[in-house]
């Protein structure tokens, strides 16, 4: 492997993720100012270490920005006296933190075996069709929807459970999908 090849690989992954250093990106606006900063300060009083506020801080970033960018990881690291690499290691462990922007409605359909046995895959198919996203993890052209399969949502008796952002829908069947979507502006 030559140095040139290595460089090429690096640049490619860089562009694909639109990470820090992109020449045309907008200037980063910090999340933790004003009321959000006060909220984090209050959360920090719950724990004996600053690091323990990491998961709550990342949740706040996602609430404010819709996803957790590398710039946001850097900010969180600064606020909590951590390194960006450490924060990234944590972010990538937890699947609910979005490392890329997602649609305005993030739709998670449980397909683990208990729901799988009850037709969850048909529900997934219905969502892909009705949202126009067609593929799992792809955001619809209008930026409105992203549909993913999710592992066990802990509502197996209500197969198939579906989460639309923070909203939990129970016992979803393919014929209910259009109705659920029609209520989203």
């Amino acid at each position: 492997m030559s140095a040139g090849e290595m460089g090429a690989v690096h640049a490619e992954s860089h562009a694909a993720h639109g990470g820090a250093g992109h020449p045309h990106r907008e200037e980063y606006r910090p999340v933790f100012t004003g009321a959000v900063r006060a909220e984090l300060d209050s959360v920090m009083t719950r724990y004996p270490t600053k690091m323990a506020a990491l998961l709550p801080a990342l949740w706040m970033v996602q609430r404010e920005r819709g996803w957790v960018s590398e710039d946001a990881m850097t900010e969180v690291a600064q606020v909590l006296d951590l390194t960006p690499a450490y924060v990234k290691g944590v972010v990538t462990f937890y699947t609910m933190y979005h490392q890329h922007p997602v649609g305005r409605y993030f739709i998670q359909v449980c397909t683990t075996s208990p729901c799988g046995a009850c037709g969850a895959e048909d529900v997934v198919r219905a969502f892909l069709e009705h949202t126009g996203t067609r593929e799992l993890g792809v955001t619809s052209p209008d930026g409105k929807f992203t549909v993913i399969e999710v592992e066990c949502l802990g509502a197996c008796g209500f197969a198939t459970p579906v989460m639309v952002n923070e909203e939990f829908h129970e016992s979803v069947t393919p014929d209910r999908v259009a109705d659920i979507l029609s209520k989203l502006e």
Partner: protein
Amino acid sequence: MSDAKTITLTIEGRQVSVPEGTSILEAAKAAGVLVPHYCYHPGLPVAGVCRMCLVEVEKAPKLAPACATAVADGQVVHVHSGKALEARKGVLEFLLINHPLDCPICDQAGECELQDYTFAEGRSEGRLIEPKRFNPVEDFGGDVMYVTNRCILCTRCVRFMDDVAQEPVLNVSERGDRAVIGKFEGQDLTHPWSGNVVDLCPVGALLSKDFLNKARAWELDRAASVCPSCTQGCNTMVETRDNMVVRLRPRPNEDVNKYFMCDHGRLNYRWMNRPDRLEAPLVRQGDRLVATEWEGAITAAARALSGKRVHAVVSPSLSNEALFLVSRILERTQGAGSFRVERGAEAPLPGVEDLALRADRAANVIGAEMLGFQRSETPLAGLRGGDALLVVDADPSVLDANDLTRAASVVVVGTTLPEALRMAAAVLPIANMVEEEGTFTNLRGRVQRFLQARAAPGMARPSWWALGDLLAALGEPGNYLLASAVFDALAAARSEFAGMSYDSLGLRGLPVLTPSPVAR
């Protein structure tokens, strides 16, 4: 430590007693039994994740990780039982399913623990039918590249950066079989000690860019040595291929550098191979220096020095042996010697007490001071009119032409001939430190041996030999046939070194008997 309870247990049929709290793995080491392992490293916090060191402990329900299980009295441990072997075979198979098996182009081949244990205990054929996982190679910055596909996620590198370098720039990213060692865009492995992750990596995942594709491990010759790049005196291994130094690596020494060396020392080896070396003794004939044989050159050098006060300018990276012989010459001539030390920024390794790349960038500053040499920014200042000047491998930048005019005669003993010294009466070519053996005294007064790693060019001789002959030619009785004999003479003459010998120093050194005169 002395009042710690001792635990006695049996490992592979051998009884062994170790302090309470010792791991089974370390106890096994003490009993002479190697428990195969990957994630465990004595210089790092225990992770217990590779699961390679599972051993059978009688009466325990499950196999125990030897690295993370403390010894208990009366324990009977089997490292090579059927159950333990099967478990290791299983781990090896799991580690290899996604491994590219690209040993023919892997720098680690030949010194790879994945190869070694697979050879010893692994399955003879693979069972994976599915495609292997693939991830691109990453440049981690510094001297380190990451060949993701070869990684076994032992996390030694992450723990080193977290707990020893205390600059957590590496992480484990993602989870499941998607997990890789990651870093943050724009934050590289620039810590001055980060190169150690390459040594710590038990496989070919973290490689030195500097060493990349330079040699196969089995082509290397190795010699125990001491890093000459600062006063810390990290123990090293000098690795050569075809008489060329291609890599320096740390050699464990609990009292000096544990398992580590800094990147500055590690990468500062090219001068050891420099081609523009003095290869023959030179003597002055009219306005020219001409090559000659050693005997004539020694005679000419002695003639240039005798009957005069000698002022010596030496390198602070000369061995104790060479410096001792120069000091004898100075004593015979009521002369004096001095040296200048190159300085740089100090760079500690926070996780290890008293370990740093030191500001004094020379190996034997303390040795030189103990042997009576004066540290000075202007080492020629003490050169009086009419003195003979003896320059022993000193940095040419200290040789101001105006000062040199005060010298009645000049003798050069060195690896190269600086332009400013072309007026010398005699020039004696010597070996550099990897071409000879000797000792350095580190900043804490520890005397440590280094061995010869490559042959000196041409007619160049070890410094102790050239200087010993010069001293003899000046009338000192006796002659030296071995570096160890010079050291014996030094130990006899200097109370700080009393009783020391190459045998007693071994390869890990001993502290001098009195505290070092200056500690920087």
